[in-house]
């Protein structure tokens, strides 16, 4: 019953985002993107061609009865599994199809879907494989969801940061690198800065990142990312400022 309730809620969601007619189903790649694709299969009852935009690639999947019949086409890819009806009797083809989609999702930062009319595919007797079976076969957690913005930012850029503090509410939950200096800045400067900023910019709301070039000398940079109760203060080389800012904008926009 709860599964049905979840599906009805998903179908009636008003929070959906569309880009060029395609519905955004994941603002993340990897297992989150593949899980989102499987969830789309799981809610598709009538036979349709689901066209997924996975990063720069396009995958057309034939879906019916909440089951994947096969991959009709995959832009820029040639593989024996493309165009083949998927069956448990042919595990190699099934595994190859999963590997293709997984590889695309690993490189993607966004996955979108369009539902298009059916196209000729396979034989009439092909039943396809259910989304839950695919999840099991491909080792995908169907409930995988994107990390919160601050955690996503740190997960994506941890290797570029010379140090960071993760903060939930008033508690520091993780420290990496030169945490003492960052802790001092957080305790003695950030809270005062935020208070003064709110007094100036009264309409400011939602997730925000403040990024400073040179606060610890030339070539240094410090950013403070905040979303809800989560925050992160991190240090990095100033030549990363534009890349990290653009990444944050992509995460929160």
């Amino acid at each position, binding site marked *: 019953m709860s599964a049905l309730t979840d599906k009805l809620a998903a179908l009636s969601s008003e929070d959906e985002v569309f880009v060029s007619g395609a519905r955004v189903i994941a603002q993340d790649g990897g297992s989150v993107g593949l899980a989102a694709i499987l969830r789309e299969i799981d809610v598709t009852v009538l036979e349709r061609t689901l066209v997924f935009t996975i990063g720069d690639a396009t995958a057309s999947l034939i879906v019916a009865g909440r089951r994947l019949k096969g991959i009709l086409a995959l832009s820029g890819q040639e593989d024996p599994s493309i165009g083949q009806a998927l069956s448990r009797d042919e595990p190699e083809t099934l595994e190859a199809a999963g590997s293709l989609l997984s590889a695309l999702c690993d490189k993607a930062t966004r996955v979108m879907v369009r539902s298009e009319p059916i196209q000729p595919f396979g034989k009439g007797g092909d039943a396809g494989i259910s989304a839950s079976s695919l999840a099991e076969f491909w080792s995908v957690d169907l409930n995988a969801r994107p990390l919160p913005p601050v955690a996503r930012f740190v997960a994506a850029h941890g290797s570029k940061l010379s140090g960071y503090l993760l903060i939930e509410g008033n508690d520091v939950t993780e420290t990496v690198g030169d945490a003492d200096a960052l802790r001092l800045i957080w305790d003695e400067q950030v809270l005062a800065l935020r208070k003064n900023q709110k007094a100036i910019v009264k309409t400011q709301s939602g997730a925000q990142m403040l990024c400073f070039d040179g606060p*610890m000398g030339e070539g240094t940079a410090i950013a403070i990312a905040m979303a809800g109760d989560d925050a992160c203060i991190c240090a990095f080389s100033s030549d990363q400022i534009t890349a990290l800012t653009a990444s944050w904008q992509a995460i929160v926009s």
Partner: protein
Amino acid sequence: MVVDALDALQSSFAGCETLAFADLSTQMILVTNSATTSPREALDALCKEAALTLGTKGTIAIGSDQSTAAIIAGEDQLRVFMRASEEPADVLCCVCQPDVDVAGFIPAARACLEQISGGA
């Protein structure tokens, strides 16, 4: 003219809305791009935020040194403040849509500021 440099920068980047050349020592906006629709109060607030984040004489917002640039990246707006290398009181305040090309805009804004501040 300063306004021509600001207009050229603004017209080069989709999503760039307001550019203001300011003097941090007096906390006054001196010139804005001609297409800005920001009211005076918003420009004053922009200048105050520049002073807060970059730091004015005797004040430091974050860390141990005054920052040469500060970027406020929000869900609905990107604000950039940067100070000129030779005249630290000369600052450029920028208000952009969040989807502006950050990687292209920031170096271009830096070049514009140095040009204006240097009197070129």
